[in-house]
């Protein structure tokens, strides 16, 4: 039976987390939701850029500005590192935060002692950064012989271009994911966000879990080198094999085919409202029959051009014109409900507001969990998209809290994990080690 006291799958696993931005933090967020204790190591003088990047969580009564609505200069003037909105997307899972200056000898000593007490060290700096601080993999192993070290950076730690840097759109361009979003024979539209920050993060979590399994079997730790490129090469499906087996490139006329996937009608159709759309996707004869019945057998559906799946695909543009005219006067959710009840795959094109305010499925599944963070208060936040019957994932982690304010758990971590006295902690603060 599951109750509030149910264990997390990763109960007792401690992760010392040096990750910043999205990619690495996505990985440790997953681990935190699964019950791991995640300690974010941060710096007050060089905060994680997503802590000071717009959009900002507004003060009560204030209207926030979107990304691009504020400049770096405005960001630098910010008094607080706790209002950067995107930070709250990537740092659920009950992460705690400690600020440590790795360049201060006493600070470095704190980090070394934390490594000794940790199962996993994660980081997303450029290759070589931790080593320059005196925390390279060999040192980590000396401190904790079975340490699991998972590095996550654009090009990984080895290889001729390991000094290259990526953001999501960079990696998406290089691995072909950008190319795969677009209408036929136009320049790629690409993704307007960093899909590969997420994918890279999933594989980072996969790497940690793989290493934990290996450690259970052998007692040994390891270094897992996660780049932002390798996690993406399998996402184009058979396109790679089409080249290695058939010599055919996916840089060719008519590809990618927009939203068409081999069926018809299939795509996004304008619905009632301003920039409102609904997806209808008939890929089988059964879908088409159900679609025709749901619409009440309008005469155009009996057109000979639409008699078979093959002929519908062949005349998809003509068919789309009829479907578009039908959808244009209807509410996107009404279309979805009508067609779904009839057995046709269909769905409203939902934006973020729809998902938070309207989507009954996300609400029923508890997709958003309202959690409080110290400075910004309560926000509806996301965790992992699955449930587990015996070890339920928790978006607030084992401490049921929103993402941490910068350095807010400093003293608690030093007390709980390193068993330091109040006097020792005060001494470290005085020495400037904890900033």
């Amino acid at each position, binding site marked *: 039976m599951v109750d509030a006291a149910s*264990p997390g799958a990763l109960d007792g696993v401690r992760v010392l987390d040096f990750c910043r931005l999205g990619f690495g933090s996505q990985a440790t967020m997953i681990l935190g939701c699964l019950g791991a204790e995640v300690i974010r190591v941060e710096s007050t003088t060089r905060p994680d*850029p997503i802590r000071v990047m717009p959009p900002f969580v507004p003060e009560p009564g204030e209207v926030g500005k979107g990304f691009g609505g504020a400049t770096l200069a405005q960001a630098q003037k910010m008094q607080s590192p706790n209002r950067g909105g995107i930070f709250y997307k990537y740092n659920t899972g009950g992460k705690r935060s400690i600020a440590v200056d790795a360049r201060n000898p006493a600070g470095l000593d704190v980090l070394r002692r934390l490594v000794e007490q940790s199962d996993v060290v994660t980081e997303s700096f450029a290759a070589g950064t931790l080593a320059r601080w005196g925390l390279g993999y060999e040192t980590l192993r000396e401190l904790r012989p079975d340490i699991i070290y998972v590095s996550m950076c654009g090009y990984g730690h080895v290889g001729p271009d390991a000094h290259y840097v990526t953001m999501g759109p960079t990696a998406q361009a290089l691995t072909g994911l950008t190319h795969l979003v677009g209408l036929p024979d136009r320049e790629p539209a690409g993704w307007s966000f960093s899909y590969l920050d997420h994918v890279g993060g999933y594989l980072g979590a996969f790497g940690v879990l793989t290493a934990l399994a290996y450690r259970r079997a052998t007692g040994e730790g390891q270094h897992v080198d996660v780049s932002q490129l390798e996690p993406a090469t399998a996402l184009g499906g058979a*396109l790679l094999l089409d080249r290695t087996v*058939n010599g055919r490139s996916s840089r060719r006329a008519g590809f990618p085919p927009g939203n068409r996937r081999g069926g018809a009608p299939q795509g996004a159709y304008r619905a009632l409202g301003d920039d409102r759309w609904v997806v209808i996707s008939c890929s089988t004869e059964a879908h088409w029959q159900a679609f025709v019945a749901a619409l009440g057998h309008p005469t155009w559906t009996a057109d000979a051009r639409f008699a078979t799946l093959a002929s519908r695909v062949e005349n998809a543009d003509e068919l789309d014109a009829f479907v578009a005219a039908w959808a244009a006067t209807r509410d996107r959710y009404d279309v979805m409900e009508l067609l779904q009840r009839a057995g046709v795959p269909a769905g409203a094109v939902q934006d973020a507001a729809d998902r938070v305010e309207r989507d009954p*499925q996300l609400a029923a599944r508890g997709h958003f969990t309202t959690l409080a963070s110290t400075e910004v208060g309560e926000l509806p936040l*996301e965790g992992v998209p699955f449930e587990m019957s015996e*070890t339920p994932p928790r978006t607030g982690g084992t401490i049921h809290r929103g993402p941490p304010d910068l350095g807010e758990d400093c003293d608690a971590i030093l007390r709980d994990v390193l068993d330091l006295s109040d006097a020792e902690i005060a001494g470290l603060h005085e020495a400037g080690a904890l900033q």
Partner: protein
Amino acid sequence: MSTGAGALGGLRVVELVDEPVEYCGRLLAGLGADVVKLEPSDGAPSRHAGPYVDGRDGDLDASLNYWHFNVGKRSVVVRDDDTIRRICASADVVIHTLRAGEAAARGLDHEALAVQNPAVISCAITPFGLTGPWSGYLADDLVLMALGGSMAVCGYGTDDPPLACWGDQAWLTAATYGAIAVLAALEHRDRTGEGQLIDVSAHQASASMTEWHVMTYLCTGSPMARFRHPTVTARDGKQVAALIPDFLGPHVFAHLLTLLEADGVAGPLSDPAFEDPRHRARGYGELMAATQRLAERHDGEELFRLGQEAGLPWGVIRAPDEALDDRHLIARGHFVDIDGVTHSGAPILANGSPFRFDRPPPRLGEHTDEVLTELEQRA
């Protein structure tokens, strides 16, 4: 790279899936698990999807789509649910795509499997999860990308439709989360002996992959519009994602200026006024225009490397197969030869436990006799 035993060596995984989530089993196979794929006598749906090996269209053993997602697995043709139940009950992990009602009707729900094998881990990957008002609804990847939110923000702008990425990105994300959840459940099982049911929602997976959109809505009260990420066009016509992430610090503009001045195309950016980030924010169009002038002097691959050598996160927009020629991926040993065919390999590089495929993609039913014999021997 390690050549030793995989992290999941000895683990028995059974895969019974109709939806495109075979990537989950592929990931576990790479870690050394024995992944047995159960197929109907006319083959899994993925065998019926192309592209095929040229000249073998429709040949169920020649679907490259099947090859890609099923490399490293064994294939067993099963004709009755009784055999399916016996095979599933003997496994450590069962991955399936059955809705709640269907699983129960066929005696393949977690409760039924756990009666015979309390340590079994069931991983159900379904469009909307096993519960909730939409749990009976139908979805392919297009529907999942619409409801999840990616489509609303990807495309050319409001004159053109919202676009979903080609392929099954929502399903692949759900499959990846399935593998993560299975690994977590194994951690718990090894500690307690207890199995459990994992319930992955592809809709939630799709909704949670959209980066800044929910937070932007929560912060500003408005959802973000659909837009195309800016690019520049190189001399050879290739598009290059020439990112200028000024928000990361003043070093970004300094790197860019060095690059532009070396080619004599900095123009107004050499004006010291651009040292002020507020001035740069107002003059962002000038930054992009100068970068476009630079782009016209170089081919795409060259421009991306010039940017990277200057410390900028630039990337040329390649077709997926063009990554095969990337010197860095090649040097990292990413592409692997399996029976004379080059596949994409390990998604992570581990120096202890390897990620590798020990078997080529199986022919339909290739391992039926072998697996059924093993089953009898264990009984």
